[in-house]
């Protein structure tokens, strides 16, 4: 069982919503499980949802810092209850001085925003949901 294999397994789990993984190499079997804090069902749904439909879950495309407002003094991009159209900006993820705009992939109403302004988010972490 080498560390690179294990690392790859952990990474693939961390970057996904899987809560259990198993791998075998020679005589060794490794089983890895985790419980997801709070948002796990939403997040799982975000990834495991019906593939033909645009997901109602907005996840972060990269590891970075969330900005819910275009600038510190400006109002937020969106608020719960607000209607959004396809392509409408939802938030910005900042990484290493580069600002990545996250836009809506569906039309609908903002249901919930599950992260706070300025928080660090992982790749694939749930940001908000759109009904």
């Amino acid at each position, binding site marked *: 069982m080498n560390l*690179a294999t294990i*690392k790859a397994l952990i*990474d693939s789990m961390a970057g996904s919503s899987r809560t259990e993984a198993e791998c075998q190499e020679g005589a060794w079997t490794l089983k890895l499980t985790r419980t997801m804090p709070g948002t796990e069902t939403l997040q799982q749904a975000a990834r495991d949802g019906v593939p033909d439909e645009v997901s109602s879950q907005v996840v972060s495309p*990269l*590891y*970075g*810092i969330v900005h819910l407002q275009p600038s510190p003094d400006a109002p937020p991009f969106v608020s719960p209850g607000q209607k959004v159209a396809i392509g409408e900006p939802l938030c910005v993820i*900042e*990484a*290493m*001085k*580069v600002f*990545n705009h996250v836009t809506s992939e569906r039309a609908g109403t903002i249901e919930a925003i599950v992260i706070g302004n*300025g928080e*660090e988010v992982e*790749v694939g972490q749930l940001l908000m949901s759109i009904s």
Partner: protein
Amino acid sequence: MIRPAFTKVLIANRGEIALRILRACKSMGLHTVVVYSQADRSASYVALADQALCIGPAPASQSYLDQTALVLAAKASGAGAIHPGFGFLSENADFAVRVEQAGLVFIGPTPDNIRDMGDKISAKRLMIEAGVPCVPGPNHALDFDYDKSCALAHEIGYPVIIKAAGGGGGKGMRIVTQEAGLRDALSLTREEARRAFGASDIYMEKYLAHPRHIEIQVLADGKGHALWLGSRDCSPQRRHQKMLEEAPAVAIAPEIISQIGARCVAACERLGYRGLGTFEFLMEDGAFFFIEMNTRLQVEHPVTEMVTGIDIVEQQIRVALGEPLALRQSDISQRGHAFECRINAEDPETFAPSPGVISAWHMPGGPGVRIDSHAFAGYRVPPHYDSMIAKLIVHGDTRDIALRRLALALDEMNIEGIKTNLPLHRAFVRDPQVIAGGVDIHYLESWLKEASWTKDQHHGS
């Protein structure tokens, strides 16, 4: 004022340069205080320092740029000096004043030095006075009279470039190739300058089409004595970000570069300059044109260290300690050739940043190979700061040997878990033009556009 000696240095920076400064302090027997943001608490150099203080949350504005917190941290830890590194507050004259007012030593130039060189027009005026060659164009801001500007452009000869006086790093500048476009360019740049930099001063210069970026490293003791430590070529740039640097600059006659070096030294002495500085030039058809002076330690300082054998950071600290320069110009020799690759956590094709956990970290070694990095296997590259995670520096007796060593070192280097620009470097150092030497500042971007390198990389060995 007699400058107080100090025995403890607060390092007001992060990442590889914080570790670089720590290493210099330790080699001199000085004590070190490292300050860090919450995002950097698990950085390796934090544990190596004699003292470490958390100065705030991850955003730089609340930590590495917080002047009050830094001065307080220095006072609280008993540090006698602050080293600002590069970036952050390193070229902030107000911070330098504040440090000195707190009775501490600012390891860098005087506030006046920083201010003089921070304004491009005043810097150019001072350089012309000191006999440093500048880009053709007046050493003052343009006034609002269009006809005068038009006559000036005619006198300089098209193409010309219109620049905001407070700009830099490629922002607030506009190239004009013929008279038809001049009026718009003037008003647009003036408006941009007003918006971006709060001052509408703009100036005009000759635009150079295929220049190389050549720079001269200087070191001055602020006591009337200055040295130049050779040249560097930092032409390979993408969006004004340097990627590959070398020392010395190739294909420049020694007597030409010596003349330029001597002028830089004369300018330092005239300015009463103190500490490290870099005179940046564009060079085209053998002629040098001053563009700006950086009043701080630079990312690419190691290539100069490799060819001169001088620990530049140590010298910088000695000057701050009030020591007169022990070196004389005749002591400065240049041995062999050195390269530096900036290794960034970014996608080598899209340049998208790639912070995250480094799962594998294998560094090259052997003769002439130097690694400056704070990273390690298991290190999480934070998303809050810039993407440079390591510098690979390689020296050889000839440029040829250095370049072959560099190619091998890049092959040996392996970083996993995040994306890096290593594949880009591996391809670029094998490019025939790079091997030949002397590419201009546009070469890297045009080479990237051809995009053949990715194929080479994937199909190559």
